[in-house]
């Protein structure tokens, strides 16, 4: 497969000790149409690659003026390891924006909740919501913490928690959510992270606020045509790539 949808890489970075990678690429068409919660689909391995499937990665930020799009990712396997070697000036083969993002209503008080690689998706949301939201982020340990200064720069409130207490408070992000909700006044909760976290937050929200979750599933086409990436909902299977990745939690069957 070759570079059919090439976008020039304008910057790459390793974020702190976490090993998390950042790539910023120029794609005016994506930057000008995308919204938080949407994702891009990236071809890995180069022109002679044996990797057939694109890798879905959330849009962590976009700037209409410069046409730049920001993605952040952990190295999980062959595809992300390959992406991590890309350099400024090289071309990324990228399709997007894909999927339905977070519904944003002006004037609401919101929580954005992120765990693991889920924080990149809500980072873009925090940028759009700014002071209208507070970000609650969970990490396994302090060495994995990253992207904090970006959240801070968007003027949203911020609380961090680590599973092992190696930085800040010890515990799970769900505790922070519970405290904020108990404090009252929250209209909407948005969350992206492991299924266990999304489900736990669902139990905590318990109808006290609107709750939107961003789901992950292995994908084929990425555009809604192949039925590979489905999730259980009250009305049967829906497609994560096209009907989501963001769903209103009331329709999702958490198991």
């Amino acid at each position: 497969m070759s570079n059919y949808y090439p976008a020039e890489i304008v910057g790459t970075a390793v974020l702190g000790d976490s090993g998390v990678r950042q790539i910023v690429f120029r794609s005016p068409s994506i930057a000008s149409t995308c919204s938080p919660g949407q994702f891009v689909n990236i071809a890995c391995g180069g022109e002679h690659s044996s990797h057939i499937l694109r890798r879905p990665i959330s849009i962590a930020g976009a700037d209409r003026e410069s046409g730049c799009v920001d993605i952040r990712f952990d190295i999980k396997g062959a595809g992300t390891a390959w992406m991590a070697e890309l350099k400024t000036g090289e071309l990324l083969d990228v399709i997007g924006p894909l999927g339905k993002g977070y519904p944003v209503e002006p004037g609401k008080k919101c929580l954005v909740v992120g765990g693991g690689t889920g924080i990149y998706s809500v980072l873009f949301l925090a940028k759009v919501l700014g002071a209208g939201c507070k970000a609650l982020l969970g990490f396994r340990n302090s060495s994995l913490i990253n992207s904090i200064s970006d959240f801070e720069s968007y003027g949203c409130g911020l609380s961090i928690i680590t599973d092992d207490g190696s930085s800040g408070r010890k515990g799970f992000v769900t505790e922070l959510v519970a405290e904020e909700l108990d404090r009252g006044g929250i209209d909407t909760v948005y969350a992206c992270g492991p299924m266990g976290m999304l489900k736990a937050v669902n139990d905590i929200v318990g109808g006290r606020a609107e709750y939107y979750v961003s789901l992950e599933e292995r994908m084929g086409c990425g555009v809604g045509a192949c039925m590979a990436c489905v999730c259980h909902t009250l009305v049967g299977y829906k497609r994560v790539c096209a009907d989501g990745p963001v769903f209103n939690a009331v329709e999702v069957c958490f198991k």
Partner: protein
Amino acid sequence: MNEHVKKDIIKGVDLSVNICGVNLRNPVITASGTCGCGEEYAPWYSAAELGAISVKAVTLEPREGNEVPRICETPSGILNAIGLQNKGVRHFVEHDLPRLKSEGAVVIVNLAGRQVSDYAETASIIDGTDADMIELNISCPNVHKGGMAFGTDKNMAAELVSEIRRCTSKPLIVKLTPNVTDITEIALAVETAGADAISLINTLLGMRIDIRTRRPMLANITGGLSGPAVFPVALRMVWQVKNKVKIPVIGMGGISTGEDAVEMMLAGADAIMVGTAMFADPLAPIRIRDGIADYCAINGLPAARELTGGVIIG
């Protein structure tokens, strides 16, 4: 039958083909299960630009399909086990078919079932519509009663085809599974039983295990292998079948470039289908169509259909 369909002439090359009486503007058909009912690829191309679209398998009743994960990657290929998720033939006839036909697409309805009576009833319903062709899927490896048993036994295959032949006067394509010892035996059986054309290959049965969790990569345990990895197997089977049957052959399995399509036609395909390649490149069918035209133009062939069976042996 569908004389209004225009011929694609690209770089002076006539790309049109005729498959058992149905005119296709070009030989590129999108493969069942990989293009839904065409809607999702609308940002890249309209189904009317294709030779035809073979829609996601329809069954008599709606089907939920398998649990996730339904897909995983293999070297130059993928495994899938969707399990024929679809909303049933009635929903298809009411919602998808009219839209596709009004857009001007040539529509092939991929038909699956559990038993002969399912298939028959579904075929009868399709027969009453303006769908262009039926593709009988006797080859789905991902559901326990997905028709693969029909496709691996020449007698069962022949019986099913005869029965469906009685239910419809529409051109009947029979789609074969590659998971057999002798593909020509099945091909001959379905030809004799009344098939108007043969399409092949469906996916090769495969499996992967996640060595971190030690669990199968797919919830269904096994799945169907497609993509470039299977291309040489598909090409061999198309060649073998074309040498045995008189009816048209539609070749597929791993086609991802115009060159691959040309190779498949040289092996004997009258038209070709493109599936997995769209996952990497949504524009693959259009790129492949143009690639066929390029090859013909460079090699002085006035019409793409002259490629069919053009391999030189000996």
